[in-house]
């Protein structure tokens, strides 16, 4: 396979997403993101909208929130709680794997 014509990929976190890019990537309205950042469910707590930048972790989290809200008609707070639990489970699974313990 020739490598010269491979598509260059941009790593999120090196290049963070703006609010518009982020909303588009999550297939939601800009306002949906704004409401969840302002209520502390997303983002790093930065106060000024113009400085908001979103990471890989934010993207995974926002898509989970969206899925919970859209598929289960979950209240945003409940969706955030579910996302928190998923993140905790992911974290524990990674720790178990790093410790050499196998999951069923």
């Amino acid at each position, binding site marked *: 396979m020739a490598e010269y014509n*491979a*598509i260059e990929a941009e*790593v999120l976190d090196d290049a963070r997403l703006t609010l518009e890019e982020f909303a*588009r990537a999550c297939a939601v309205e800009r306002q949906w993101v704004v409401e969840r950042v302002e209520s502390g469910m997303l983002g790093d707590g930065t106060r000024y909208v113009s400085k908001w930048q979103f990471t890989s972790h934010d993207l*995974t989290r926002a898509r989970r929130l969206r899925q919970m809200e859209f598929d289960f008609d979950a209240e945003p707070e409940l969706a955030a709680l579910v996302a928190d639990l998923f993140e905790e489970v992911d974290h524990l699974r990674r720790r178990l794997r790093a410790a*050499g313990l196998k999951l069923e």
Partner: protein
Amino acid sequence: MEFKDYYQTLGVDRDAAIPDIKKAYRKLARKYHPDISKEPDAALRMQEINEAKAVLTDPEKRAAYDQLGERYRAGQDFRPPPDWDAGFEFSGSSFEDIDLGEFSDFFANLFGQRGPRTHRGHRMQGGDRHAKIYVDLEDAYHGAVRTVTLHVPQTDAQGHVSAREHNLKVRIPKGIKEGQHIRLAGQGHPGIGGGEPGNLYLEVHFTPDPDYRVEGRDVFATLRVAPWEAALGAAIDVPTPSGQVHLKIPKGSQGGRKLRLKGRGLPGDEPGDLYFVLEVVLPPAHTDKARRLYESMARDMPFNPRQTRQANG
């Protein structure tokens, strides 16, 4: 192409009300949720139930589908008749949530119409797409080129959409982490009315490695050593993802001890560390000589591993 019975997919009656359809959908979505399901075909089932819900909870799509469904049964060979959807107006906005590439040909053929009827005169950027990509740990250490196969919606002259396979060669950047996204500009859905195409986001996962385990940028491996290497110390050659190293085992080591190789984890601005976790492996006592050596140790070395830590050294 086979006809899909969406009512059968969700396990609901043909006259089920929308709240019942949503309830059936949620029950199945919980069962097949990709983050928790242990079912082997979870991803496929999730796609099927998402598709069924998208049609049956939209009154216009459901009415058109019902009219069509009177003549077909699940699994029956199917081609959409011309003008099958005459008299029905699907709302264009509902497609914004739907990545047609993640749906079946059946769905794309019926509901993937992106003709001038819904988008006349609009110039719109194409939607972003998401996919997962599995790479080897080696790729994260050195960078690599990998091929990703996507199902891309393709519109014919009549405005109907079908899925075709599209291979993309992607350069995986060195130092990528588990769960991180990479963005491929312009590789999402095509724009509408001359609009720019969307982007493709790939969520990176590592294929399980028999030798290494990864946590963030730190990498862990088990290093098997002989009792005398652990007790007396040793210098041994060990392979690592970034090349062979000459590793010093400190004398008096026990199983479970972690040896850190700073900066030999995943590369990056702040590279991770590589940890070797020692596992002391006992030689088998399957020859007379080996048995005599064990007997000699038992006799000459006062040692009870169930006593104090001090006795353990």
